[in-house]
């Protein structure tokens, strides 16, 4: 008995000793590794799709981008009790590492670029049955790389250009704004030929040739390269890409009812099928949080509000029937909304201040009494109305003011406004007066659609104190604005301190 147990003990232990030796090679049963991926067409397709998924992240268009573009501009402001959050919409930048105001958007911009670079680095090596499909995937990645650099250029200007997949030890070189513009132009010009003129029904939402030209036009316009901008816009307005038209019902641009309509040039697709967070979990949401953050207090977080001068701007000119410009109804919640148009606010009577107003575009009050983090309403990032007004602006800048009128009038006509020349005969062919009027036309048509900040920069309205003082009259936040400093954001300090190749803007 004794011997048996002894022998048993030894044999068992020997068995374990020998058998366990190969057990140090364990691979994850949970996920594909990076070197297993990027092998098939389907991998490439899913890879490029992941760039679209960046629209659902907080730092981009799910949340904070609206704070940078809409609330920082003179159209909006924040009165959030979260003071630092509000401070970052009124040029009180103290902590450059403030996540929500700065770092999150910077990081998510590069997160998107990393996804573009993964596609651009890996997809060329994948065999496709149809070469055009491969080219279209690469072209999408280039479009989006340009897209994210465009907004980075708008916000921070001198940012590092990264064109390869990231490595943990990367220390990228900083680039100048003009180098960034060059890269954006290059990517868009390379993307354009390989994108289709129109996508099939299941792929609507991907950028087409028109979207590429529109982004290209925006890029040129920010550099005041009017001739190049004109050429790019020609494609959409008069050229082979002129497939667009304004929808009859202005409001159709801001609800989920008539999405991807004839006016849509590039539209971010949102849904409410998934109710997870904005991260990378299995149920990661595909929604925008904008209405939850912009809805009036008592309904949403009320972190973003509209400046009240917008209400007055709409009321300055009556429509053809002597009524109030109906775009006001779709654009804002304001005290007289019920009196003027018979609309309540999420089914509630006006219970906010007499001089308060809230953005209504994208709000879901048309069918519900509350908001949440899962708005499915697509965001029309580039509308044909915007393109038409841009076309008018470019023509005017080229000295072709008289040619420009018709495009403004197309936009005014849809809003039931009389032609510009009749309403404002004093403008005539005066380029400056036309531009000044166009600035208002753009507000009336596009308020709250994230174009105003770029407009102000392009027009040079942030470049001298007199102009800034003028803006400050309608948006007192601009009293904090320092010319030569606040036209761009500080680079997140944590990257500046840890990357010897990256310098903080000298004014910060």
């Amino acid at each position: 008995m004794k011997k048996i147990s002894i022998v048993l003990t030894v044999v068992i232990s020997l068995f374990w000793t020998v058998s366990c030796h190969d057990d140090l090679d364990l691979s994850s049963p949970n996920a594909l590794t990076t070197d297993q991926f990027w092998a098939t067409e389907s991998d490439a397709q899913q890879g490029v799709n992941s760039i679209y998924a960046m629209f659902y992240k907080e730092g981009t268009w799910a949340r904070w981008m609206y704070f940078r573009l809409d609330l920082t501009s003179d159209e909006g402001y924040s009165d959030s009790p979260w003071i630092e959050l509000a401070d970052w919409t009124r040029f009180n930048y103290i902590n450059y590492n403030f996540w929500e105001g700065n770092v999150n958007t910077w990081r998510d911009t590069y997160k998107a670029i990393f996804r573009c670079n993964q596609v651009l680095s890996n997809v060329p090596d994948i065999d496709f049955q149809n070469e055009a499909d491969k080219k279209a995937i690469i072209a999408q990645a280039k479009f989006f790389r340009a897209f994210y650099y465009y907004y980075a250029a708008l916000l921070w200007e001198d940012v590092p250009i990264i064109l390869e997949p990231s490595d943990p030890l990367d220390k990228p070189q900083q680039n100048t704004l003009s180098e960034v513009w060059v890269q954006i132009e290059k990517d868009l010009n390379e993307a354009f030929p390989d994108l289709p003129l129109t996508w099939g029904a299941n792929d609507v939402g991907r950028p087409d040739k028109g979207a590429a030209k529109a982004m290209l036009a925006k890029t040129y316009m920010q550099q005041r390269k009017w001739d190049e901008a004109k050429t790019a816009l020609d494609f959409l307005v008069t050229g082979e890409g002129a497939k667009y038209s304004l929808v009859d019902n202005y409001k159709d641009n801001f609800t989920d009812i008539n999405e991807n309509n004839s006016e849509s040039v590039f539209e971010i697709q949102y849904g409410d099928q998934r109710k997870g967070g904005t991260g990378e979990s299995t149920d990661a949401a595909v929604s925008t949080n904008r209405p939850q953050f912009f809805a009036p207090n008592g309904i949403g977080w009320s972190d973003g509000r509209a400046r009240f001068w917008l209400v007055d701007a709409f009321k300055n000119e009556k429509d053809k029937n002597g009524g109030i410009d109906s775009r006001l109804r779709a654009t804002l919640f304001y005290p007289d909304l019920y009196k003027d148009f018979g609309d309540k606010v999420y089914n509630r009577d006006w219970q906010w201040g007499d001089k308060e107003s809230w953005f209504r575009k994208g709000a879901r009050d048309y069918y519900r009494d509350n908001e949440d983090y899962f708005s499915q309403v697509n965001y029309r990032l580039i509308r044909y109305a915007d393109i038409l007004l841009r076309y008018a602006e470019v023509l005017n800048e080229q000295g072709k003011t008289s040619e420009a009128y018709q495009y403004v009038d197309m936009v005014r006509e849809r809003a039931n406004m009389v032609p510009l020349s009749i309403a404002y005969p004093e403008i005539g062919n005066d380029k400056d007066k036309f531009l000044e009027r166009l600035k208002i036309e753009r507000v009336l048509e596009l308020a709250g659609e994230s174009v105003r900040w770029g407009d102000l920069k392009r027009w040079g309205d942030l470049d001298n104190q007199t102009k800034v003082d003028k803006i400050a009259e309608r948006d007192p936040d601009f009293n904090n604005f320092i010319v030569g400093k606040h036209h761009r954001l500080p680079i997140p300090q944590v990257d500046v301190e840890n990357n010897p190749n990256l310098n903080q803007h000298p004014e910060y």
Partner: protein
Amino acid sequence: MKTLIKNLLKKELILLFCSMLFVQGIIAQNEITVQGKVISANDGSAIPFTSILVKGTTIGTEADIDGNFSLNAPSNAILQISFLGFKSVEVPINGQTNLTISLEEDLAALDEVVVVGYGSQLRKDLTGAISTVKSEEIQKRQVTTIAEGLQGLVTGVKVRGGGRPGQEANIEIRGLKNLQNANPLYVIDGLITTANRDFNPNDIESIQVLKDASAAAIYGSRAANGVIIITTKQGKQGPLQIAVSAKTSVTSMPRYNLMETDEFAKFQFQAYDNGNRERPKLNLNVNTDWQDEVFDTGLIRDYNVSFAGGGENSSYFMSGNYFGNKGTVVSTEFDRISFRVNTSGKKGIFSIGQNLAISNSVTDEMSGAPIIDVYRLFPTIPVYDDRNPGGYGYGEQGVANTFGTNPLALADFNDTENKNFRIRGNLWSELEFRPWLTYRFNFGYNSSFDTHKNLRKLGNWTLNQPYDNSSTFQNKGRYELILIENTLNFKKEFGNHNVTALVGQTYQSDFYEQIWGQKRGLLINPGTGEYYDVLDSGSEPQVGGFREESSLISYLARLEYNYDDRYLLNAVIRRDGSSRFSDDHKWSNFPSVSLGWRISNESFFNVEAISDLKFRASYGELGSGNIGPYESQGFINTFGAIVLGNSQDLYPSATQVRLSNPNLTWERLKQTNIGIDLGLFDNSLTLAADYFIARTEDVLFGFPLLLTTGNDGGNPIANAATIENRGFEFDLSYRKSYGDFSFNTSLNFTKLNNKLISLGNNQNDTFSGNTKTEAGQPVGMWYVLQTDGLFQSQQEILDYKSSDGSVIMPNAQPGDIRFKDINDDGEINNEDKEVVSSPWPEFEMGFNFGAEYKNFDFSMNWIASHGATVYNGFRSVVDRFDDDSNYRSGIRPWTPENPNTDFPRIVRGTTLNARGDSDRFLEDGSFIRLKYIGFGYNLPTELMEKIGFSRARLSFSAQNIITFTKYTGLDPEFSNGNIFQRGADIDAFPNLKTYTLGVEFSF
């Protein structure tokens, strides 16, 4: 390496067979039968179960319960009598047949057996830094985990706990040596595990804390944070002993001093007036004390019963325990039931044993952060409000502008329950081939079945809350650890040369898998309003699951050499291979060596007062592979989806989200320790002092990458930093007895300097909250704006200029804080932040005192921490006034009428006064605390015998009842799990005042 082990095992086998052939025999010589009794020299009482050995032979026996023994021995033999806690004696028989042997208590316990991992040593032979803790010290406190029980008892061991039911304390041995997980390795009866809340502290027999590298080296790659070895109770020879204990405690929360409605309204209106804002329409008819609503008296019950006994060749120990803790915060509870069976048996050279514990615990987890919400909510908010979805009161726009959460609503609408069923144990067998050669096989097994359930009911708890459907999230997980160890132990004396050697091989595998599911829109029982919280109910199903495996193979060897009790050597080498690293980096060696010189045993050493003096020195390298199982690989995240097409359908997306670091390798701790053990006056006064330098290289940590990498989903782990801890610690103890009265007292002291030598990813610094961690500095230093009093007048504001003449704070008003313009650029911004102070204490101390008089005993533990600067999260909320919260009662903010104050003007809205990132909220975190005080009474023996009990004891104790501190938060002894923000008291659950009544008896 494989061949080496095979050869080794071959040798093992040869030895095995040799030993089987070997026939043991003892040649008797003039044998007589000796009978005797062993008694205590102190009081003459019998000492049961002492071991009696005939010197130079293997003949021996054990005394019975009354101290009587009988054995056959040569008439000229010498008997060696030893028993734990007493000095061993040698008694020559000299032909006597009846002996009375009295043993003296060994006060210094130099002969105390210290478990050192795969073996044991006598305290006098130790060359490493090892502390032992008596189980009674832990068991007398009311604790959930062992870690709490160690607080203040061991030098170099820092413990920070909290009073949330089921909360597990953080423990840190000799400083913050890495940046991931400071918890030490726990070894319970040879099983590598965690001593979490599933473990019943009543089962502990002894605890050893291995602190330096040489002591811990035998655990190699897992020991970088130190090792805590726990031995559970075993049965002793004799009839069944039944011990029963019951402890009941009441616990209470410390309270904030907050305003009631009248005072609150006055200050809120003042802040709104100063901010030129319309006053809120406060509901002045309501005066809610949120602390009364949320906090309650807690109750802890700890009932334990054990059965122990054994025969000559076998022993058994069984215990059952119930531990219940109803929390001090609404809807929190922890319940644990545990059982243990330890048995062992011996036949000839073969012995076998088993330790098995089964526990089931249920935790009703705390929801949200009630510690914060009680002061974020206004007294003017009613607890219940029918107008809100769900019926609870909370903030209301223009009436009570707070986003504070109603903790009662959250506890009701978002409740979480965790259940853990755990089996933990080991099976061992030993073959004693020869008295000097033992083979041991150990099989350890630890498995837990974890259930998590969250139920989200319909209803809101805060202002402007988005609508959220009802839902339930549940997961079930299983963890399994398998440990297989083979060790061969050699122990022999060659004259004055005493050699102990150990070789061994171990294999460990860890496995965890989980499945989870979620449903929304749950069914509600229309009759009762109850939710159907099973996953069959509801819609929008989601499921998921994952599995993780890792394994570790190790080879170990140790040599202990002792020459004449004067010169001691201990050398260890361990080689570890881990599946967590890539192929080129799997294996590493961890050597250590330590030396001791017991100078008091030298013939030239003749100092009367010094009874023992030993110098110790050691150097060793330890490792850590404490990272996720697949950390070195880069993965594709396939969870994403995108919306596309006219029908707005979902399409899959996939990409790499998180970067990875394929070249990860072992983190390595290099520790040098110099120590001295001194015993004076027959060891009644002892001192153990150690100085150490612990340098951790290649620290595994996920430091933030540059944001421009676009990395998300967690920072990839890298061999990212070098950290150094230098420390000095000593433990001074004194014990004395005068007749019926005896006392002991000890003082321990730990001083530690932590420094980050270098930071990973070629980075210079990293920020977390209000802290900065940079190379050359301690981890997590306070990095804030500095205040410089208040502006008293407009003139002072205009006079406050930078050197180029620009007014630094032109928008300030009298009563606002003056901030220092550190970089002299004429404005206050991020660039003006500086490292101002350290969250690290300069030193920590523990003071213990115990006394006994006849049947009474008394003991107390004090702990002290000096010199840490901490951030008062509470004040940073209630003192800021730009946002809305309740306020501290009795504040006197600056007004033109009340300018003599350090509290700035209160303003609702933008103001620098409110900034949380300034030194305004930093406080001195030093404290002295009476951690434990207890009285006990042992009922007289005569009385006991009458009722058939062998022992009965009543005790009363209190914990955390006296604290001296200047800190104005709830508890200076808070813990923050974020290593970089350890000094920030944000929502830490405080330690509770605890009063415990205990009854113990045995029969």
